[in-house]
């Protein structure tokens, strides 16, 4: 516990506690619609945090993270539907498979010196591969989609992840908090230091005794495996999976917008980014609904404009300047806290 709070200022802790308390109490006040919005936010916050391990910490740009979400979703959904395996058990094979696929991509890329934009394109290529592959994978429905049985649940079946929105909300909240704490600890660990070093200068990192291949692999595998857990929730919350949607590049991009807008490599970036983006997009939707305008694509144009403005004018994202405003940057020693 001492290790957990080391170097974190008191004011930051108080703010953090208040923030999470508000989130924990939210279902008591929020209506169904708001809960769905919050679930979306938490999902993006969680997945963004996972992506951030790879890009924000280790500096490896993945534009194909929908691949891992999809793998997690399909593996647990198939195990549940076909064999009645609880998602809590099914998530282990999902973790392993997503991690293994991440390892394959990482191994190929890092062994053969594929980096930068080429690496990003390689990650897209694998996600596209999966999209087309699952389109033709009849065992899990192919392009026609894969569906989980839905009924009107009077009681939460926690063991099989069948139940109310509130259940999913709390599970996602727990996952987001866990990912946050994990990343916080990772940044303070040997691996965290090594990742940041690799991100800043691979040559210098290598000269200081860091096996950069190994640590890049750790980042990819960890990021891939954790992202797949987001897919588990995705599958059991939405109850339907279409390769065309799940693995599509726009899913991958949606997933990384939060951390980029919030601040790449920061712990709060993915959370702040998810709140901002989803919050604003839902606000926009609400306004348009009131005005009686229904335009598909408006939300994405809005996302695009947000991304454009942030990338142009806040290259470090929203969180670093916000942190300064809140006066939280004084006593934290390490960047990225």
């Amino acid at each position: 516990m001492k290790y957990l709070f080391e170097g974190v200022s008191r004011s930051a802790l108080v703010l953090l506690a208040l923030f999470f308390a508000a989130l924990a109490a939210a279902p008591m006040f929020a209506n169904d619609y708001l809960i769905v919005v919050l679930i979306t936010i938490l999902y993006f916050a969680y997945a963004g945090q996972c992506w951030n391990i790879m890009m924000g910490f280790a500096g490896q740009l993945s534009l194909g993270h929908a691949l891992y979400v999809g793998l997690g979703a399909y593996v647990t959904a198939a195990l549940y539907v076909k064999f009645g395996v609880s998602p809590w058990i099914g998530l282990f094979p999902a973790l392993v498979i997503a991690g293994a696929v991440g390892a394959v991509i990482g191994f190929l890329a890092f062994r053969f010196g594929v980096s930068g934009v080429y690496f990003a394109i390689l990650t897209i290529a694998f996600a596209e591969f999966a999209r087309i592959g699952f389109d033709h994978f009849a065992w899990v429905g192919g392009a026609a989609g894969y569906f989980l049985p839905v009924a009107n649940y009077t009681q939460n079946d926690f063991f099989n992840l069948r139940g109310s929105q509130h259940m999913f909300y709390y599970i996602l909240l727990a996952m987001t908090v866990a990912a946050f704490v994990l990343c916080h600890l990772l940044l303070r660990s040997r691996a965290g230091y090594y990742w940041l070093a690799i991100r800043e200068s691979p040559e210098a990192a290598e000269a200081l005794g860091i096996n950069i291949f190994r640590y890049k692999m750790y980042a990819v595998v960890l990021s891939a495996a954790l992202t797949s857990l987001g897919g588990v929730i995705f599958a059991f919350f939405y109850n339907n999976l279409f390769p065309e949607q799940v693995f599509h590049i726009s899913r991958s991009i949606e997933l990384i917008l939060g951390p980029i807008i919030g601040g790449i490599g920061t712990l709060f970036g993915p959370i702040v980014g998810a709140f901002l983006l989803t919050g604003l997009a839902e606000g926009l939707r609400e306004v348009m609904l009131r005005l009686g305008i229904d335009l598909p694509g408006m939300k994405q144009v809005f996302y695009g404009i947000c991304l454009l403005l942030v990338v142009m004018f806040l290259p470090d994202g929203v969180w670093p300047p916000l942190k300064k405003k809140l006066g939280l940057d004084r006593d934290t020693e390490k960047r990225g806290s």
Partner: protein
Amino acid sequence: MTTEVVLKIAISGVLTGLVYGLMALGLSVIFGVVRVVNFAHGEMMTIAMYLVIVFFSALGLDPLLMLVPISAVLFALGYLMQRAIINPFINRPEHSQFMLLVAVALIMVNALLLIFGPDSQGITTTYSFDSFDVGGIIIDAGKVYAAIAALIVAVALFAFFRLTLTGKAIRACADNYNGALVVGLDVKRLYSLTFGIGAACVGAAGTMLMIVTDVTPAIGPAYTLLAFVIVITGGLGSMPGAIVGGVLIGLTEALGGFFFTPSAKTMFSFAILVLVLLFRPQGIMGRKTA
């Protein structure tokens, strides 16, 4: 399945591949000079394709006639994009530039969706159903015209870079940014010109592609990926490489779609991409960088 059918498919693939090659040539030129990967490439092409639809339905103009004006519009778009938003990003990290263009792409796709709706649209020209019979092999006339036009544009571009002073100045920028600055070249303007030229290439390619296919707003990212695949296969920054890569990918997709299933055809080009990235990262025609 007869040899004629396979040959017909192969020729059709090569012809489409030449148009793909022109599209990829635009990406390659931009990367070779500005060192920015245009993530909005396919989206820019769909803009050109919708321009064809607008002009065709409003004025009934044949795509072949619109080749030059639409390329000019795309040139202006590219020039302005480089000037207004990309030039300030020249010294930013790679991922930052990438994100910028992802944002532009996102806006383009969905702006088109807002304006034109999600449905697929196409045009029917006077020669849409014509074909040539070459020794028993039937070839679509539209594809032949499109491929010839694409080749002409590509050759014109080669000539521009080899023969004109501006073309040489742009190549100088590509070889040595600082050197170009030192000898007094207006690098930023040349970059804008280059991006404009790259955009004009996709403009021409998009116009030609409308003769042979339909367009939806959502197809943009697929074309961007296709352009990446081609350019990496052929060699990023290599102009002949883009054309060779285009033909190779066009052929692969046509044959892959024929022998397996059309919906899985892109898998074959992605397989080629992965193999090239791993075993010949500089591409088929690319030079090895130390």
